[in-house]
């Protein structure tokens, strides 16, 4: 093996790709993004094949209902006998489609590291402590206005092995379903003002500045609850077409 890659090498690659893609209003990251080394062997090189079929099965999607969640699933601080350590937060927002219509009754799933930056996962070997009172997993269904709400603790930043001294900014992983399989989204929510943003190739893979900004939640003081939690808002807009019959509402 050669010298391990340094942050400065990654910084240079990030800057070069940002310059090369300047002016391209891309909503999503390219699948080949060299600074995130795991993309190298895992992105297709052939162009995607367009499907134009109005009957395509992907224009509908799975449905979820109240039997798929329990009332406590969206409170990650109440899943154990004791309370987790860390800064208690509430995260709320709405799930919308590109027309701004609420996505109703659909499943939202989240997972995250604990306050120390450690996942409850056998392959996470970061030497930060596990928290016996925190699993870091939640789910809920969106309401009639597309709204969701989670109570959790603020996740810590954590190191990874993309390059020497690589650290992920604090983030919560989100998985979302729309009314069509084509609207499926897995993404990550970040916290405002995190100093690690410029060094993180996963976040920087979104080279369009305004698109990248849409990954960052807003601290909203009015959403903070006195003597209880700090409040963040993060609205999510799902991409991709839905079947036209969905417009009548489901």
């Amino acid at each position, binding site marked *: 093996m050669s010298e391990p890659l340094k942050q400065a090498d990654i910084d240079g690659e990030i800057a070069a790709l940002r310059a090369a893609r300047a002016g391209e209003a891309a909503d999503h990251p390219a*699948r080949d993004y060299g600074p995130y080394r795991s993309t190298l062997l895992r992105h297709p090189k052939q162009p995607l094949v367009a499907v134009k079929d109005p009957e395509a099965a992907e224009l509908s999607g799975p449905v979820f209902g109240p039997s798929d969640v329990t009332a406590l699933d969206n409170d990650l601080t109440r899943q154990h006998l004791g309370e987790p350590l860390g800064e208690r937060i509430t995260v709320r927002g709405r799930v919308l489609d590109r027309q701004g219509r609420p996505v109703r009754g659909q499943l939202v799933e989240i997972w995250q590291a604990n306050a120390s930056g450690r*996942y409850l996962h056998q392959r996470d070997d970061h030497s930060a402590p596990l928290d016996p009172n925190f699993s870091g997993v939640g789910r809920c269904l969106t309401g009639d206005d597309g709204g969701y709400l989670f109570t959790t603790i603020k996740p810590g930043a954590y190191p990874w092995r993309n390059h020497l001294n690589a650290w992920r900014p604090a983030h919560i992983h989100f998985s979302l379903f729309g009314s069509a399989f084509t609207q499926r989204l897995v993404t990550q929510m970040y916290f405002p003002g995190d100093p690690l943003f410029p060094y993180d190739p996963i976040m920087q893979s979104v080279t369009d500045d305004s698109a990248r900004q849409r990954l960052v939640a807003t601290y909203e003081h009015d959403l903070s609850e006195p003597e209880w939690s700090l409040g963040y808002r993060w609205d999510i807009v799902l991409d991709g077409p839905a079947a036209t019959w969905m417009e009548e509402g489901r």
Partner: protein
Amino acid sequence: MKPTPSQTVGPFYGYALPFPGGGELAAGGIAVHGHVYDGAGDPVPDALLEFWQADERGSLAGAPGTLRRDPTNGAILGRDGVRFTGFGRVATDADGHWTLRTVMPGNGYISVCVFARGLLHHLYTRIYPGRLGQDAFLDALTPERRQTLVAAEEREGVYRFDIHLQGEKETVFLDFG
């Protein structure tokens, strides 16, 4: 409105996304299985596959209840085995292998969404179990590319479908615009 960008599922979704019986969409039908490979031909042990399909009659009405929960203790009860939800979710194992048990889709194909560490944006593909007559989408592909979407019947009721993210045998991935 501008969409929220995609980000990788990462390696640590294990407690959040897979669930018991995620690949048991229906009993008594067919099994589809295979590996996920990267561009070096190595298995991908941390991919997550999702499946969406019509029932045997071609209905895409998918009932809720995929993850049915026990309201007493919150445990996952899974599907009731009667109503067809049409949705499955399977993480690849240490060999990059996965298995789905389901019924033959009435419209001819099973839709697949691929997530993995290293994939910044998920990928869509389709499994055509066997070749059940004409299909306009398949017929528009070159024979070589078409082959990547057709699952071969290994023995009665068991179909093989490998996913190649990159390389000579790269799977056809789809764009819905």
